């Protein structure tokens, strides 16, 4: 009887502690910031500085903004400027700040079957891939990278369709892995590429167009009508990551000697 009572007490205690809300800030972000290791490197320092624990939910930019819209997270760190502006305009987010940037690149087989190395610009590179019907792996998940890809297709005047164009619905690393297996092209941010570089046979086939600039922004979820949003903690994270110290830490983050992100906070 005694054992049973202890067991019940234990069960109640643990279920209570599971259900009770700790002081945790929820950050929705893109796969590129978490899987590159940047957040694993930054957030413990932030936690030490402020005592705020940050839970990272890494999804695509589109989903991250949706989570913010529903109030399921407190702050978002994403990369799709047009969607970010809309998010703020619609009243879901406040205090958007630039954080950092890197650039997109087109990865492909080392032999470069569509000869995009000679492309004039990125739209031209996409046209060459489409004309050659070379395998192209699309993220297909409304992430920042996917949205950028769609913008480029639109600019090049091509509606990608056919067996060569594969909408994967996967995260960045998985899409790169898929391209690696199928010897296809894939649009990637440079940060993710650098973090998986040693495990793949793909090479950078096109880079350098202004169009491929990839800025990241951080936005607090609007606490109006949502009293459960941890706005003060979110602002602390925003201030910290855009501070001189935060920016320096971002610039210092390197994989195999290469810098992944460049601070851009003003």
């Amino acid at each position, binding site marked *: 009887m005694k054992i049973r009572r202890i067991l019940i007490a234990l069960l109640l205690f*643990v279920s209570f502690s599971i259900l009770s809300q700790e002081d945790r800030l929820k950050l929705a972000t893109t796969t590129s910031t978490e*899987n590159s290791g940047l957040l694993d490197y930054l957030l413990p320092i932030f936690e030490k500085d402020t005592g705020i624990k940050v*839970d990272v939910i890494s999804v695509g930019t589109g989903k991250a903004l949706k989570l913010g819209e529903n109030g399921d997270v407190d702050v978002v760190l994403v990369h799709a400027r047009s969607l970010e502006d809309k998010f703020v305009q619609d009243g879901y987010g406040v205090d958007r700040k630039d954080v950092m940037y890197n650039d997109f690149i087109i990865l492909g087989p080392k032999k470069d079957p569509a000869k995009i190395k000679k492309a004039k610009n990125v739209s031209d590179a996409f046209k060459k891939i489409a004309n050659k019907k070379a395998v192209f792996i699309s993220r297909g998940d409304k992430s920042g990278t996917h949205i950028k890809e769609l913008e480029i297709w639109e600019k090049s005047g091509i509606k990608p369709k056919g067996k060569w164009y594969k909408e994967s619905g996967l995260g960045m*690393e998985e899409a790169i892995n898929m391209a690696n297996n199928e010897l296809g092209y894939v649009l990637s941010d440079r940060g993710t590429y650098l973090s*998986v570089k040693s*495990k793949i046979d793909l090479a950078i086939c096109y880079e350098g167009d202004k169009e491929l600039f990839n800025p990241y922004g951080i936005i607090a979820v609007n606490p109006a009508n949502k009293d*459960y949003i941890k706005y003060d903690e979110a602002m602390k994270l925003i201030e910290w990551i855009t501070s001189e110290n935060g920016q320096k830490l971002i610039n210092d983050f390197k994989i195999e000697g290469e810098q992944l992100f460049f601070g851009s906070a003003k």
Partner: protein
Amino acid sequence: MDLLQKIFYLIFSFDRDIYQIVLTSLGLTFFSISFATVIAVPLAFIIDFSNYKIKKFLIAFINSLTSLPTVVIGLIVYSFISRKGILGFTGLLFTPGAIVIGQTILAIPIITSTIVAGFSKIDSKLYETLKTLGADKRQIFLGIISETKILIVAALLFGFGRIIGEVGVSMMLGGNIKRYTRTMTTAIALETSKGEFEFALALGIILLLIALSINFIIHLFLKREDKWKRI
């Protein structure tokens, strides 16, 4: 060979990241099974004691529920506990509590149907025997429990083995948050996508060992029961 070495190093060096994840998985599954037991065991008795026609229907119903896809449970619970849902005020989405809710729902039909299936093998005269011996309702209930406890424990373990390997609920409701809601299955999915096969394989081996040893224990239990029944 190099790969194997790395995997075994990760397992036997008790890599902190790995065991954190293993403990999270074991803990969450333990609570899910505990909550599920509270519902599933009485439910199994209710089904077993209901009259023939209803019983047949209930068994078919519970058995079909065992094939509920985990992602569907994840989706339904998600829509309830997202801030926009009816239970949004609880703020449970992306917490361990959310995973426990989903896994509990997943476990209930599995445990219930296993127990009910086991009941049918137990001597049907047990109930009448207890009754003729003058036992009241409570005594009958306790009597049956004591006669079937091995069966119930086996059903719980079976549920445990099933739940610890599920990925849909943990991923959708937990959000795969490091050191918080990252379980063995979601970590394997993540590390594989990152190309970190050693870490994923090390976790995979641990998961496999847990699942296999649970099934092994179940068989030992049931064998013991067989012997004991013959006496």
